[in-house]
């Protein structure tokens, strides 16, 4: 245990009910605050990274190398007029971005950021994550339907079929991890990975990891699977009628979704807040590094992967997307489960 963790421990385990509630509220505020800050700068780095990959500078005007750009964008979006189309279903139209952001944000509750820091340590954490990620589809579908516009509607239809299809692959890809760790609790899964010298399920579950990441791109509507918002075909897809703050809620939800998917990948396949025990054996001082540093670094690697793929791959065609999901990823995930189960049974 290092200095930061010894300071935090007494706060993490209080005795009274008020203390428990206060600690949970503080944790929620902390997690939401840090995540929102990350979301703001994730937009900045996305533009920077893709800019440099395409041999241009990206945002440069606001602040040093455009560092204040997210703040300027935030102010602009906040003061923009909130337009609601006359033919729209007002209530559903207004609810849609909130539902989407809620689904993305509530997933953060069961993610173990480092040893002992988790808002809700529940036994079915992994299932909870799957449940919340499937709720995100409602935001898209509601937005697509309520806008009463053909582009939005097509985007909503595409997203509902896309998310339902890829959810199955994502769920099945995590079953291998569940079998290996004999648990659905994210914290236990991280601890189970530390039992192995390689310390990450990435190696025995490489197939599961690959399927999970492809599914994660589809579930967050990122390129190459951004068909629900495909700007060249559908203008902006399901959120074409949104403006100002409601538009930015969709934007924030997409980035939180990206961070959540990265966090699930890190927890289930990259050993969460820990590093492989063999590293610590070779270089002992590494044990003193706080777990949160490793966790955040691993998240950054995954978020960078999202940018990298966006700058590299063109968009899939819709029937190809469905064929890939149903005919390739789901059978592969099932194969992964069978092989993992047999190996587990033999040992």
């Amino acid at each position: 245990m290092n200095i930061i963790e010894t300071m935090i421990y007494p706060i993490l385990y209080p005795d009274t009910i008020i203390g428990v509630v206060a600690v949970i509220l503080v944790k929620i505020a902390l997690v939401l605050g840090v995540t929102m800050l990350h979301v703001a700068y994730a937009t900045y780095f996305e533009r920077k990274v893709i800019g440099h990959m395409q041999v241009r500078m990206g945002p440069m005007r606001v602040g040093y190398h455009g560092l204040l750009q997210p703040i300027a964008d935030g102010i602009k979006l906040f003061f923009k007029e909130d337009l609601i189309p006359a033919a729209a279903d007002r209530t559903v139209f207004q609810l849609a971005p909130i539902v989407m952001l809620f689904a993305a944000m509530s997933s953060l509750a069961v993610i173990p950021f480092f040893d002992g820091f988790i808002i809700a340590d529940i036994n079915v954490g992994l299932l909870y994550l799957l449940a919340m990620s499937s709720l995100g589809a409602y935001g898209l579908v509601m937005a697509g339907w309520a806008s009463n516009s053909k582009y939005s509607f097509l985007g909503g239809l595409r997203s509902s079929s896309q998310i339902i299809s890829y959810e199955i692959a994502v769920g099945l890809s995590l079953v291998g991890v569940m079998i290996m760790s004999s648990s659905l609790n994210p914290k236990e899964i991280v601890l189970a990975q530390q039992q192995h010298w390689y310390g990450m399920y990435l190696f025995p579950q490489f197939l599961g990891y690959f399927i999970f990441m492809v599914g994660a791109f589809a579930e967050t509507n990122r390129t190459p699977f951004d068909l629900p918002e495909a700007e060249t075909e559908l203008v902006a897809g399901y959120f074409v009628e949104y403006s100002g703050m409601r538009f930015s809620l969709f934007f924030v939800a997409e980035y939180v979704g990206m961070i959540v998917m990265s966090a699930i990948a890190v927890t289930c396949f990259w050993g969460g807040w820990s590093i492989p025990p063999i590293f610590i054996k070779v270089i002992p001082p590494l044990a003193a590094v706080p777990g949160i540093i490793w966790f955040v670094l691993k998240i950054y690697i995954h978020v960078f992967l999202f940018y990298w793929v966006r700058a590299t791959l063109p968009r899939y065609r819709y029937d190809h997307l469905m064929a890939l999901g149903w005919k390739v990823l789901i059978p592969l995930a099932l194969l992964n489960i069978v092989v993992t189960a047999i190996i587990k049974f033999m040992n």
Partner: protein
Amino acid sequence: MLPILFFLYHAVVIIALSVVIITRRNPVHSVLWMLVLFFHIASLYLFLNAEFLAAVQIILYAGAILVLFLFVIMMLNIKHELNADICIGEWPIGVAIGLSVMTLVILGIGKFSHGPMGQASIEAVKAETHTKALGRVLYMDYLFPFEIASIILLIAIVGAIVLAKKEKASGG
């Protein structure tokens, strides 16, 4: 006291939501209210320490089945639905059947008695975690009936695909 309040809240809200769902003119609104209903049902499962069932309730019903509902209903011509009569002509028969079933249930509730206690007490389930306890029962004690149920579902899926797939001309 707290458990009773918790249960009362859910009982009242679930009944109210059911009424709201069937009285909406707009079918998309009905489906969205149903989503709220499913959350309350999941919450009741949590209240019974059945965390696995609660999660599966959301994943399957809210995440898959209801999205498919929404998918189909969004294709309907809502303008036509909005002008349709809210009740069909035979509503008195429906009310009569509903009331008689309700009387039966109310009469029946008084006759309920506790069944014999099983192995899975609350403490046992808590110690083992609900997912493991459920898995043990399903895959060890009742493996055969479970597999039969899954084969029936598989037949239904194959049947649906056969019905939906139109016969194509040779080679098509």
